[in-house]
């Protein structure tokens, strides 16, 4: 295939799901998402889920590994044996975010266990970031546990939360104690909608705080799976207003793929650089930078 248009893959291994994206980029700087997929791990062996998803994504796009100039991993993907090189999560999310929404100056990656607010410049260079602490309160995982307890599917969480009239906030800091708070709320007859909205609001509060301390200013893209949760998005916007934060908040249909997309794009960047330097990238893990 011609040098100037090249295909690269990005693999983002998260703690709850794996995402794969295949990008076409050209010397001239055009970038396009060829195909992207994600799959929840659900207690299966991560490496198998990863390789499986990678293969189905490739075949789905009628491609083979040899068509790829660079296989870039991110997230917890350092261990993927067939990678060309690894990029760190926030580097790739920043890059992916700018691909999805070129005007963003920050993104917040909301994962199952951690959230990371990332500030970037026009070239997607990471300028600053803040991460949630080692306590899992208000994490995506926590939301999932609660909603399962409430008998609400992931897809239903958002719409339900939007119906809340008087959201009930959790008092507890600890995610586990908060679960009991929730059970208590149910027994007190608080509606599922108000409970979910309460959780959304407390999560949103933490995330907005992250964004502010990361000094986000104008446009923020939410990356990671929870961007699809309209309830959380609404809560984020409410909290942003309450805290008089200056930025606006966007989501994108491919938000969950941001990391994978960014990895693939950085892979292309490196592939071109290496070929300029005449370095071959046959061996896996060849690009240690």
């Amino acid at each position, binding site marked *: 295939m011609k040098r100037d248009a090249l295909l690269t893959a990005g693999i983002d291994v998260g703690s709850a799901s794996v995402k794969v994206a295949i990008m076409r980029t050209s010397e001239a700087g055009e970038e396009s998402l060829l195909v992207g997929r994600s799959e929840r791990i659900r207690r299966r062996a991560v490496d198998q889920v990863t390789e499986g998803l990678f293969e189905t994504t490739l075949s789905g796009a009628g491609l083979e590994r040899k068509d790829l100039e660079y296989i870039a991993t991110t997230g917890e993907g350092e261990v993927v044996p067939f990678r060309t090189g690894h990029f760190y999560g926030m580097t790739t999310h920043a890059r992916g975010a700018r691909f999805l929404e070129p005007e963003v100056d920050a993104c917040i990656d909301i994962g199952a266990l951690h959230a990371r607010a990332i500030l970037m410049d026009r070239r997607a260079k990471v300028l600053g970031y803040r991460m949630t602490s080692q306590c899992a309160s208000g994490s995506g995982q926590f939301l999932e546990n609660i909603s399962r307890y409430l008998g609400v599917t992931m897809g239903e969480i958002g719409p339900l939360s939007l119906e809340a009239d008087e959201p009930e906030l959790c*008092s*507890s*800091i600890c995610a586990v104690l908060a679960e009991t708070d929730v059970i208590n709320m149910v027994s007190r007859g608080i509606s599922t909608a108000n409970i979910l909205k309460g959780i959304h609001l407390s999560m949103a509060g933490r995330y907005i*705080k992250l964004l502010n*301390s990361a000094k986000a200013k104008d446009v923020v893209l939410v990356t990671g799976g929870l961007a699809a949760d309209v309830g959380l998005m609404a809560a984020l916007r409410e909290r942003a207003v309450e*805290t008089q934060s200056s930025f606006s908040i966007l989501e994108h249909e491919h938000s969950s793929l941001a990391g994978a997309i960014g990895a693939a794009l950085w892979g292309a960047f490196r592939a071109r650089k290496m070929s300029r330097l005449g370095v071959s990238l046959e061996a896996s893990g060849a690009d240690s930078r």
Partner: protein
Amino acid sequence: MSTSKQATVDSAKDRSQDRQKQMIAGHFDRLAELEDRGEKCVYTFVPGNLTELMLSFGVAPVLPEINALQSGMRGLSRDYIMRAEKDGHSEDVCTYVKCDIGMMRAGNVGPTGKRLPNPDLLLLSYTGCFTFLKWFELLREEYDCPVAMLHVPYQADGRITDEMRTYVVDQLKKKIIPALERISGRAYDEDRLRELLTRSARAEDDLVHVLESAKNKPSPIDAYFGGVYYIGPIFSAFRGTEDAVEYYRELREEIDERVRLGQGPIIPSGQHVDERYRLVVEGPPNWTSFREFWEMFSDEGAVVVASTYTKVGGVYEDGFRHDPDRPLESLAEYCLGCYTNLNLPSRVEKLAGYVRDYEADGFLINSVKSCNSFSAGQLMILREVENQTGCPGGFIESDLVDPRYFSAANIKNRLESYFQMIEQKRTQGGSL
């Protein structure tokens, strides 16, 4: 098991309370007009505050700690703290500092809604709390004004040595007084200082009398929740003033009257508490849910008969008084003697003493996340006091002004269990 309460009586609204309100309001009014009047103000801390010295130069003291706790009681602290954390202050550190910085960034509007003047001097009396050092380093970045550092050594071996006293007195002479002379444009007037110190001593006598009235059964006061009001004037801007002398004389009379009538303390709702448990409490209170917190005690008939928090601004029960004949020396001894400047063995000794002298049924620690000076080691204090007195200890955790660290359910659960435990001990296993 909640206690019956007598009907509200008129004496609930004590004259002393009104006087204190007026004093404080007046103080903040004065502060608001300070800059127009061309007067000067000095920011400083409650422990080791040199109020008489400042007043002798005619400068007004401003106490960021008091502002912070007032913000807490008014429900403003959450936003202030958030604001400071948004600006990069760690979640881990003292919330007084963050509340103060947040308040300043929000326009430095004081407790009474009036704007506070910027400091002309930061009088960093470094007494019993490491955070004070950082606090004024942080403020120094915000205000372009001089800092006068008074380093007060720690009573590591449980006593005040001559070297400590000399070190502090020298600093007063060579650094603090000159700094005050510079900003006030007045010369140091020792006679004026002596007058103020004379009045301090008088008020201090009455304060001690009031706090020790809790030895009566029932105790006429709550020496913790009520106590924080009693110490207000003498720990803040008023020590050495006529107002303070008057306030404490009045308060003393009111308390003596309550003793005569055999009345218990009065809670904010205006009711007397029927004393069921006499407690000694270590550690500062929580300010954001002060009333709710107090009622968790009063509803169960728990009365605090002695607390260490009422000694942070000075320990007077062991005989120390400000002394007009040794002005600077006694100021030095005052700073060195503040409760948080005592080492842990001395604190254990004090608490065990309270449990015995005030015949307490229980000993409770309210451990605040913010204050390592108080909190670090409290669990050992708990053990030691239990061992020395055989009095069961209780332990609860909260914070000064960060509502995120006041979990009412948790604290109530612990307090209930604790009171039921004391009760069960009393009734020796019988049904509760």
